[in-house]
C-alpha cells in the first residue's frame, strides 16, 4: 500500500489509518493532505487512528506537523480513536500533541469538527469558552 486514502465529506477531510505507519507513508500523507486541503478548501481534518497500534516519535511528530500545516491553511485537525497504549507511549515520549483536538471515536470527532465549523459560521464564537477553562 503506497498511499493512505483521503475522503472528503462536506467541508471535512477524513483520513483513517488502517495500516502500520512507516516514515515514508507518513510523509506521503502529509503531502497529499496538504494538497487536498488547498484543492477542496476543506475547513476540517479528521484523522482516525483506532487501528494504529504502533507509534514512534516520528509518527507523533508527523501528527503535530500535519495539524500545524492544516492550521496554516485554515483547517482544524481532530485526532480520533487513539488507543490507550498509543496514548501512553506518546506521553512517555513527551509528545502531548498540544494544539490538536482529540476525540474518543469518529462520531465525537466529527461532532467536534462540525462544532468548530458552525462556530465560525455564526461569527460569535458561542460556547467555546465554556469548554476551555
Amino acid at each position, binding site marked *: 500500500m503506497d498511499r493512505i486514502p483521503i475522503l472528503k465529506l462536506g467541508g471535512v477531510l477524513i483520513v483513517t489509518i488502517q495500516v502500520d505507519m512507516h516514515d515514508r507513508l507518513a510523509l506521503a500523507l502529509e503531502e497529499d493532505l496538504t494538497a487536498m486541503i488547498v484543492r477542496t478548501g476543506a475547513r476540517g481534518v479528521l484523522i482516525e487512528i483506532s487501528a494504529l497500534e504502533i507509534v514512534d516519535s516520528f509518527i507523533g511528530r508527523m501528527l503535530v506537523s500535519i495539524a500545524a500545516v492544516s492550521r496554516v491553511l485554515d483547517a482544524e485537525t481532530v485526532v480520533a480513536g487513539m488507543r490507550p497504549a498509543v*496514548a501512553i507511549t506518546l506521553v512517555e515520549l513527551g509528545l*502531548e500533541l498540544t494544539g490538536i483536538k*482529540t476525540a474518543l471515536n469518529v462520531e*465525537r470527532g466529527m461532532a467536534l469538527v462540525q462544532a468548530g465549523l458552525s462556530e465560525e459560521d455564526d461569527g460569535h464564537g458561542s460556547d467555546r469558552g465554556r469548554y476551555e477553562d
Partner: protein
Amino acid sequence: MHGAELLRKVVVDDAGGIRDAWLAILAAGMTAHGGRAREGELRTQAGIVVSQLGEGLAAGDLDADGSGFAPLRETLADISRSRALQGFTPTDTANFVFSLKEPVFEALGRACGSGSPDLATGVVSAGKLLDRLALHTMETFLASREEVIGRQGQEIAELSTPVVRLWDGILALPLIGTLDSARTGVVMETLLQAIVDEEAEIAIIDITGVPTVDTLVAQHLLKTVAAARLMGADCIVSGIRPQIAQTMVHLGVELNVVSKATLADAFAVALRRTGRKVVRQQAPTEERR
C-alpha cells in the same frame, strides 16, 4: 579416612540415632517457639532429610551444590517455602538445619573415638556441608517471603486504583496512597481502558487520599491527564487539601489542569459540561421526610 567417606559411613550406619537425636532437639526448640510445626510432620521431614543426606554422601562428594544433593536441596526448599508461607521466623527455619550438626558430630565422635585425627576431618567436612545446606534453606525462605511481599504489593496496587463510573460518560478515579512511577503506569492504563469501555468524556482524578504532592507526583499526575486528553477525554483534578495546596505553591509545582477543591465541585462541573444539572425537587423550607 577421607572426610566424605567417613561422613557417609556414619550417616548411613547411624541414620536412626541421628534422626532421633535431631528430633529431640527440634522438639525442644519447638516448644520454646510455641510449637508451630506438628510433631508427625516434623518426624517425616527429619526422616526424609537424613536419608537423603545419606544418599547424597553416597554419591561420593561433599559439594552441597552438586548433583548428588539435588533431591535434598529440593526437599529443603519445599520445607522452607512452606515455612515461609506459614509465618515461621528466619531463626526457626535456619535452626531446622543447624540443629542437625549436633547429632551428626556426636555420631562422628561415637564412630571415631575421641582424639582421633579422623574426627577433626569429619567434623570440618560435616560443618561445611551442613552450613551450605542451611544457607540454601535460608535463600529459599527469603525468596518465598519476597514473593509473598511482591504479590501483596501488586494486590494493593490493584485494589487502590479503582475507576468509578459516576454518570454516563463521567468517570472518577479516587487515588489513595503515594504515586510512584510504577503505580502511575497502572493508574494510567486502568483509567484509559475505562475511558474506552465507558466512552467517557470527563474523568475526575480525586487526590484526597494522596498524602503528599511533590514535583514528581505532580509530573505523574500531568502525564495521566495528558494521556487521557490524547484519548479525547477531559480531566479534572479534585480533592486538593489546604496543606497540599500550600506545599504545591511553595514548591512551585503547577498543575496546568482544571482543579477543584472537592469531588462534589468537580462532579458539578462535569455535569454542566455534559449539559446536565442537578436540581432540588423541593424547597429546603418544606417538610422533609
